[in-house]
């Protein structure tokens, strides 16, 4: 069995297409995710901004107080420093600050670019101007409501303190990290294609090599098991590389549950590969038909798990929960979800166990499909 695995390993390792899709593609996608999502968070941590006081009037001071409140409540987002106009412009020119707020009766913002940071500064100014306009309107038309309004606006400035993303399950969540978990889930499901290919390789009516393997004096179960173990290991190593890249190179914070992530990934590999092998062994159709079935099953399972359209999984949970219990994509994504949302590990454990059980069922199903088979045509 080790000899069979050794050569299948070499054969898979030297197959550039397989290695690209199972190893390099997730890494490329991860990098793209990081560039798209990861940098937003990093750069928004602190926007260096200069404040130039042009006017000492009460109206002008109000804006300065507004900026101070924001800096105080969202200290990771903006950092202001009062300085002369000349120095501020020099720093802006050198790219050391993102913008200059001018404290005046009519506050102004000077920026040198059009990036996310500049947009954030612009939104602060617009927010102030919008609030000022409301105050002016209310004081002109209903001055008795002014104290209440001021209280409310003051609350808005403090909003950042109270609005913090959290889950009902009791854990803090980072929306961006969910994309990276989806990527890990997708890599697990790539195992489905590897398993499918392996399943094709033991069918005499599809590949000549399959015919030769069928005619050998080694049992189908041994061949299936050796292929299964090997592909799971390859897929799992791919995921470990991906995880290493995420945490080691991109410095992504995947949370404290790295052990749980690895466990989900491993069981995800098992179910992904087993599902691919089962789909590959169903029926005695030719390769094209089977590929169409695999695509339908893999895309269908992703769709039903909500990876394409949000809310589908919830609807299924309400009307036909059994699908969520057997759908590999749903189980993997749910395991990651429950791991990041709930302190209680019972749902996570249920998902992991379900995946392991289904992987075994799929594998046995695969064996029964191909054992003692005689084809109608070759």
């Amino acid at each position, binding site marked *: 069995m080790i*000899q*069979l695995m050794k*050569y299948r390993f*070499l*054969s*898979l*390792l*030297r*197959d550039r297409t397989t290695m690209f899709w199972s190893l390099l593609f997730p890494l490329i996608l991860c990098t793209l995710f990081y560039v798209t999502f990861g940098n937003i968070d990093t750069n928004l941590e602190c926007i260096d901004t200069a404040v130039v006081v042009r006017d000492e009037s009460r109206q002008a001071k109000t804006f300065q107080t507004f900026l101070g409140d924001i800096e105080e409540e969202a200290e990771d987002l903006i950092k202001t420093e009062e300085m002369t106009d000349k120095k501020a412009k020099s720093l802006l020119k050198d790219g050391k600050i993102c913008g200059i707020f001018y404290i005046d009766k009519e506050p102004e913002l000077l920026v040198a670019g059009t990036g996310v940071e500049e947009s954030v500064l612009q939104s602060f100014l617009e927010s102030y101007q919008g609030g000022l306009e409301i105050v002016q309107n209310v004081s002109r038309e209903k001055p008795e409501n002014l104290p209440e309004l001021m209280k409310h606006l003051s609350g808005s400035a403090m909003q950042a303190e109270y609005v913090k993303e959290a889950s009902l399950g009791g854990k803090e969540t980072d929306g961006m990290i969910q994309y990276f978990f989806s990527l890990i889930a997708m890599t697990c499901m790539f195992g489905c294609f590897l398993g499918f290919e392996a399943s094709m390789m033991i069918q*005499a009516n599809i*590949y*000549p*090599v399959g*015919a*030769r*393997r*069928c*005619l*050998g*004096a*080694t*049992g*189908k179960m041994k061949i299936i098991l050796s292929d299964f173990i090997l592909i799971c290991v390859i897929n799992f190593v791919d995921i470990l590389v991906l995880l290493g890249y995420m945490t080691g190179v991109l410095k992504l914070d995947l949370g404290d549950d790295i052990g749980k992530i690895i466990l989900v990934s491993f069981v995800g590999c098992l179910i992904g590969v087993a599902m691919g092998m089962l789909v590959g062994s169903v029926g005695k159709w030719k390769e094209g038909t089977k590929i169409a079935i695999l695509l339908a099953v893999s895309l269908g399972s992703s769709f039903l798990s909500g990876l394409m359209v949000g809310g589908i999984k919830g609807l299924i949970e309400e009307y036909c929960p059994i699908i969520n219990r057997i759908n590999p994509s749903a189980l993997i994504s749910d395991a990651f979800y429950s791991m990041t949302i709930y302190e209680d590990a019972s749902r996570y454990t249920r998902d992991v166990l379900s995946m392991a059980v289904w992987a075994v069922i799929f594998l046995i199903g695969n064996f029964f499909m191909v*054992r*003692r*088979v*005689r*084809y*109608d*045509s*070759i």
Partner: protein
Amino acid sequence: MIQIKNLVKRYGDLVALDHLNLEILEGEVFGLLGPNGCGKTTAISCLLALLKYDKGEITLFGREMHPDSYDIKRKIGIVPQEVAVFQELSVVENIDYFCGLYIKDKVKRRECVEEAIDFVGLESHRKMRPNQLSGGLLRRLNIACGIAHKPKLVILDEPTVAVDPQSRNHILEGIQKLNKDGATIIYTSHYMEEVEQICTRIAILDHGRNIASGTKEELKRMIKMGERITIEGIALDKEQLQEIKELPHVFQTDYKNQKLVVCCSGAKQNLMRVLHYLQEKEISFGKIFSEMPTLNDVFLEITGKELRD
């Protein structure tokens, strides 16, 4: 060793094997000869329990073959029509992998692999991948993968298709050597010359039926023609042609483009009689030669069509 009785295999309305009967004895090189689509590969696939069949009985080594008859499979080596190797593995790795499906002992397997490489003459190509080999070398690798475990029965399904003459000779000599070493061979081909060259017994298949079988001599004795005389560069008038037709034992003549083919029944001295006639009539000619009937003649006479049609 192998008995096939009344084997019927249908693909929808098409009858691929029509009550096929075959018996293959231990130690022989048995040729399955027939045109493309006559049912040779289908018969082999049924024999190996890869294909379902509608009717009939097949026994190998005295037992019925099933997909999980591993003890029988251990005695069989198959060289399929299409090259069945892993493209990503080298020559030696491919042979070792397929040999490993039969032999678990590492030391014994290594010996077998080396012998197989030596047997097919791929020593200098052992580290090459299949896509680096020529068509002929690829076929040799295909053979090595099928015979490395030293099977008692070797089934070769058209192993010389698209192979250069040098590799073809190498393959044919190898098959004879395998047989000499004790293996029973089933050899399917539509190349009658190859079958004539190496097979000790032959079955001619057409439309899924065994239309004739026996040794090549037995097959040739089944037909009327005993000798074919060809004369090139000859000019004949109608009267002379008719006179040749009326010579003893001549049953057919064909005269086209100054080339005359005279078919004679099995009696001896046919060539002498024709030469004597030409000398007597002072008819000049370029070249004359005589041939014994071929399997194609057998096929032609039994089916009314050429083997390669």
